[in-house]
């Protein structure tokens, strides 16, 4: 079933998953904007260094370092370099809101593109009828 995807399809699907996870992470940061000692989280694409740091498991039942699917190309991380306010919370609400807006546009663009690809394929299949 999955053979007829060119790499653009796979990229688009992966990007949609990334954008959805990012939206959830931002929602959690904003909900916890006043929680003491809460550290904001973000989502980023894994680079090679992070991929090699996954736990080398000798048995399938050993637990991974992170709780996420290791074959994903992205991961959640804890934001370290922001300043804390007096109760140990480091959520920068303005940054989170702007990330939210950017992510929206990103997601809508991805959906538009995937629809475009589907429509193209449909035109080809119907042979122009």
């Amino acid at each position, binding site marked *: *079933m999955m*053979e*007829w995807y*060119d790499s653009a399809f796979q990229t688009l*699907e992966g990007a*949609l*998953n990334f954008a*959805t996870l990012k939206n959830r992470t931002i929602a959690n940061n904003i909900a916890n904007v006043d929680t003491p000692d809460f550290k904001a989280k973000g989502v980023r694409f894994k680079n090679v260094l992070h991929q090699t740091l996954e736990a080398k498991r000798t048995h399938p039942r050993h637990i991974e370092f992170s709780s996420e699917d290791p074959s994903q190309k992205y991961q959640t991380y804890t934001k370290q370099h922001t300043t804390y306010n007096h109760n140990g919370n480091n959520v920068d609400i303005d940054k989170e809101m702007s990330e939210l807006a950017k992510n929206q546009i990103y997601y809508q663009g991805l*959906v538009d593109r*995937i629809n475009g690809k*589907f429509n193209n*394929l*449909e035109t*080809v*299949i*119907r*042979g122009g009828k």
Partner: protein
Amino acid sequence: MNRILHHVMPNDFSQPTNGQSTVSPAKAQDGFAKTLKAAIDKLNTAEKVSDRKTEAFANGQIDDLHDVMITAQKAKMTLETSVQIQQKVIDAYNEMMRMQL
């Protein structure tokens, strides 16, 4: 597009025919039947995957809505492809049957 064709029709009808290799009518019928069946089987798989995802979504077990929508759309495309190919194959078959009479 070739990828889609190959996916639905595993038999490769694009081989060049030289003068010697002829196919008897019985074999031709067999080949067509197999192609149709393969197309229907692949369609069935696509539908099943989409159905399972839709059921999981209805039961609240899915994480990503776009995943469900994309899977459904892929099943629809596979269906459309199969329908078109079946139509073309049947047309070609009828054409060939007409020729022989």
